[in-house]
């Protein structure tokens, strides 16, 4: 089988409220903590949906749109930078699994 990139994998995910231009974020990340005192930046390699990325300048960025609601970052971040909630069914993002 051909190796799949993370973009190809996420391309199969059915996200909710895709028609809405702006969805309400269900996770808030204080990236100031990531970019100043966090010793490991673990969210950038434990998040299965690659929502936490590092740019060329070495700064961490977060986006919730690709989140697949797994919860990993809520436990992995031990620096108190992640505030995690479930997405709002009407206004939020989040997923609908076909198989699960």
């Amino acid at each position, binding site marked *: 089988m051909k190796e799949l990139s993370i973009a190809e994998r996420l391309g199969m995910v059915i996200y909710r409220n895709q028609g809405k231009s702006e969805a309400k974020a269900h996770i808030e990340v204080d990236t100031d903590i990531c970019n100043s005192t966090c010793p490991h930046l673990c969210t950038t*390699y434990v998040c299965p949906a690659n929502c936490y990325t590092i740019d060329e300048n*070495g700064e961490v960025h977060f986006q919730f749109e690709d989140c697949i609601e797994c919860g990993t970052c809520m436990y992995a971040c031990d620096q108190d930078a992640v505030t995690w909630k479930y*997405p709002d*069914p009407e206004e939020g993002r989040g997923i609908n*699994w076909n198989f*699960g």
Partner: protein
Amino acid sequence: MEDEKFDCIIVGGGIAGLSAALTFAQNNMKFLLIERGEYSGAKNVSGGVLWGTQLAELVPNYWEEDDIGFERYIKHRRLSFLDHDTSFSIDFKSEHFEEPPYKGIIVLRSKFDNWFAGKVQEAIEKSDFADESFLATDILVEEVLKDNGKVVGIRAGEEKFFSDCVIIAEGVNNLLTRQVGLQSDYVPADYVATGIKEIIRMDRDVLENRFQLDGLSGMSNEFIGLGATMGVEGGGFLYTNRDSLSIGLVVGLKDLREKGGNNELSKAAKKRREDNKKPLKAQDKSKNIYDILSEFKKHPAVKDMIKGGETVEYSAHVVSTGDMRVMPKEIYADGVMIAGEAANLLMNSGKAIQGMDFAMQSGVLAAQAAVEAKKKKDFSAVTLQKYRTALEESFVMKDMRQFQSAVHFLHTPAMFSTIPNLVCDFGRQFFTIDNTPTEKTSKMLKNSIKKYSSYSELIKIGIKGARSL
């Protein structure tokens, strides 16, 4: 329905919540179940095998229906030790698994939970509260309401619903359990893992021939070793669905945080932080969770199993490990009970990953405690404590307590690197015939032990392993 007070409100329409709901419907309780997904199963992810025979008690003869909720029943089990290029398996297939009620069924949650919800709806329609009990979907419960310390209902958006008790069956990411004070606000990564999975579609004939399946018989294959998780705590799984495979990994989160690393870009982050008082210790090696899954799929033994298939879904979810240290302080309080994985009722003992059967049992027991509380007209902690007692007397807590040391043992490096390496190395020697004088088997074993471990280490592992079983 807003003005009505329910006997019970169930938060979460997964297996625990639906099992509680079915028990209520069968006992003429007036209840409201609230599921945040568009339908039951829309938000659920599991490996997954539902072990045990309890489903047959809740839905008699479930296997005889035209519209069956499961994929296949387990007839063939395999545990494979993987190193970088070798697989050495323990393989068990038996007619003993052939007779219903099956001892384990392979399920896809989006289908199974939806099917199960249908059964609950049928039961509601036969109950005294056919028009007053509800399965409500697409609603997010944001708050559990309390009055004088006792749980009295829930809030979803602007709407409030009231009941004599609430069963929280919200799953492992148990925000409401934390909110009512039964679980700490921050649960550390120590005793949880992340499951990551792909559904690979395959022609049904190809799949049945490849895995030697007959009718609806199925296979479960678990994997441990470097070839599965690249040295990170955890293991892999492969289950046969009707016309697809569920393949994935369960990776210990704390260990991944320590052993994983980002790509080239973390060097930039490191450089950026050089002058900082808090330097970055991030490792330069590239090892993130989805790349580990890609490597697992490339292992020679795994590659051949998934050949020709097409990935149709990629998913992930946090999962409890079975370590009881992560469990809520208590699973009941005045007017509230916690069921299923919201109470971290899940266990990987090495024998099987059990979670859905624990969810089913705990959902039923919580509901039974509520039925009894209604009879007594007392939903205080004193009465609901019955739930705890019943759960302790059931296989759920008995097994979790019994296998705690097995759970700890499974999370030692010996189990996900040393032992699989040693087993595979021995296998390579033992099964190789190459026209040179063959060493005695005991010498081969000695070679492998020297290469990957030592007798003293093995004795220690052996003692620990023997104690844990």
